[in-house]
């Protein structure tokens, strides 16, 4: 996965010019580590559970099947986290996404079971219903001016209720194979070579590695062209090697299990698309402006209501997609589906560095935050820690992450 966070912060003002190459490298390492604390935290959590889950010389957490599972099990939370971080950046919140996911799962079941819709039509219509749900909530938030907290709290109840109504107090089970693929499928389902390492996965992983190298290299060259400061070669290469090795190992793990999960393909596409929206589109920039200073955004001619409205339409579609992936994975649309998803998605965004007051947060951060929660869930389950302690630990991690953020900001004088 490419890292879409391009935090263009300048080095701290008033920093004395580094005396020699060693201290220059050191100061870059320190400032980078401080800036990417959340990524370091993910690496630390993975390292911790890799060691704790070693059984007979083999780490269960790092087994290819488990790595693949980790992605698939958390896919729907990560999809929600992408939408949620944008909502939070604009200074809102969405408590309804879990209920909406359940509602859409049920709706898709009805499309297939009662209306006999083909799988692709069912998925398409479900996403449209998600957009309508988002438009409904966006209307109250953007044009009536009711706080998102209230509207989506109501939505949490409304759509949980409607999910039960649609299901008629029963589960809908047994979905078509193609539908189930979005939660359960792998590339080897279609292109199976029977080799111990799936060649297609290796090729795609290789392309990703080349993409990362080319992209970071071009960014460095561009900075040099504009005569901007660049990091020392040693640190640049070290980071690049780390990224390449990480993606490489991940690719080998997937290739030796069943190939690339369909959920990961969906997720990768979303991260790329939303990374561009976040960093390079007018819509994305306006989301940040609204979160930073709503009044200033309005005076600059930004149509803040429209941005708010479309933000929630977008969240509705992503909640619908998460609901579909979850339903596909369980092969079941049930009344308890999506329970607590909103809290995991919100936690992911905040652990990933989003600020409660808005204006700050990145999709990359939210994804990493979601992965931290995922690794915690997975690792603690492997260790046989009960669900009650898992909850407590996750709560504690959320608090620590935000406290760390607050501490960091205070130290840098903001």
């Amino acid at each position, binding site marked *: 996965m490419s890292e879409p966070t391009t935090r*263009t*912060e*300048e080095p701290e*003002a008033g920093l004395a010019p580094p005396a020699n190459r060693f201290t220059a490298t050191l100061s870059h390492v320190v400032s980078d580590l401080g800036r990417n604390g959340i990524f370091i935290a993910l690496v630390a959590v993975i390292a911790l559970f890799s060691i704790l889950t070693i059984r007979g010389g083999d780490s269960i957490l790092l087994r290819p099947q488990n790595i693949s599972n980790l992605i698939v099990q958390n896919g729907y939370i990560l999809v929600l986290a992408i939408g949620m971080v944008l909502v939070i950046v604009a200074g809102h919140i969405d408590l309804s996404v879990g209920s909406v996911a359940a509602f859409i799962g049920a709706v898709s079941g009805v499309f297939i079971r009662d209306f006999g819709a083909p799988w692709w039509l069912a998925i398409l219509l479900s996403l449209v219903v998600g957009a309508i749900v988002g438009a409904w909530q966006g209307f109250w938030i953007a044009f009536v001016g009711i706080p998102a907290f209230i509207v989506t709290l109501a939505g949490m109840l409304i759509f949980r209720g409607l999910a039960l109504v649609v299901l008629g107090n029963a589960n809908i089970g047994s979905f078509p194979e193609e539908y189930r693929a979005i939660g359960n499928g792998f590339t080897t389902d279609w292109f199976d070579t029977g080799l111990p390492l799936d060649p297609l996965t290796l090729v795609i992983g290789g392309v990703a590695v080349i993409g990362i190298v080319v992209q970071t290299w071009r960014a460095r060259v561009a900075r040099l062209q504009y005569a901007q400061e660049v990091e020392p070669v040693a640190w640049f290469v070290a980071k690049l090697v780390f990224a390449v090795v990480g993606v490489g190992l991940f690719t080998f793990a997937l290739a030796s299990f069943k190939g690339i999960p369909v959920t990961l393909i969906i997720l990768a596409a979303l991260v790329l698309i939303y990374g*561009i929206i976040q960093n*390079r*589109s*007018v819509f994305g*920039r*306006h989301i*940040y*402006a609204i*979160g*930073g*200073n709503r*009044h*200033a*955004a309005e*005076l*600059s*001619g*930004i149509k803040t209501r429209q941005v708010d409205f479309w933000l929630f339409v977008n969240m509705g579609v992503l909640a619908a997609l998460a609901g579909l992936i979850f339903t596909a994975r369980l092969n079941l649309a049930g009344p308890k589906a999506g329970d607590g998803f909103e809290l995991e998605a919100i936690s992911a965004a905040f652990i990933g560095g989003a600020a409660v007051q808005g*204006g*700050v947060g990145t999709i990359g951060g939210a994804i990493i935050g979601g992965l931290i929660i995922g690794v915690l869930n997975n690792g603690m389950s492997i260790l046989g820690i009960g669900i009650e302690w898992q909850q407590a630990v996750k709560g504690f991690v959320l608090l620590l992450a935000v406290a760390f953020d607050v501490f960091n900001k205070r130290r840098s004088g*903001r």
Partner: protein
Amino acid sequence: MAEPTPGTPLVELIDVHKGFGPVSVLKGVSLTVYPGKVTALVGDNGAGKSTLIKGLAGVQPYDSGQVLVDGRRVDLHGPREAAALGIEVVYQDLALCDNLDIVQNMFLGREETSWGTFDEGRMEREASETLRSLSVRTVKSVRQKVSSLSGGQRQTVAIARSVLKKARLVILDEPTAALGVAQTEQVLALVRRLAEQGVGVLLISHNLADVFAVADDIAVLYLGQMVAQIPAADTDRDDVVAYITGSKSPEGEAA
């Protein structure tokens, strides 16, 4: 009323009215702003200065009266319409987003795009050029976050933002209110430079020292009426204070 500065007016307000419910804030105000001149708008709190500029900015349209730009009648119903006519406002609270950098703030609401995504290089270049054309040297990097800037630097960015798109009338609302002595000097010099570039400047200020330092014309609002618009050279501090406090009125004057 005293003789206005000769030449073709850039913006003319003729008999504009604005009320909020039963309260009438602007009671038939006329004002003329010339290109390349600094016109100071003074008046006590509640005289209607803010309402007057919000009308010009298109944020709160006037109830009645005419607005002429280059002698042609225009309707101002939104910030975008005002911006399209080259009217830009720098608000007192600066209206910058702390979480964005200088370039992002200067282009907010009018980002340059190519193929649907930002043309960052072009925006950065234009922002730097604009700052340079205003002889701004206090800002280290245009990629600095606005939250890291001092009050004077923020004011500078806000003013640079207003002239980025070839503004013709820049309205400055109390630009020096929160600044120290040195920073005030810098901003006033910037105001003069704007006028030298041919931009019409409407400066709202409480500080008469600032007004006399930079203004060509002084317009005085008193309780929603324009009581005087006089060349700064033809008047003095006591005179202007008398207009502001209402102890001197256009009818009874012996100027």
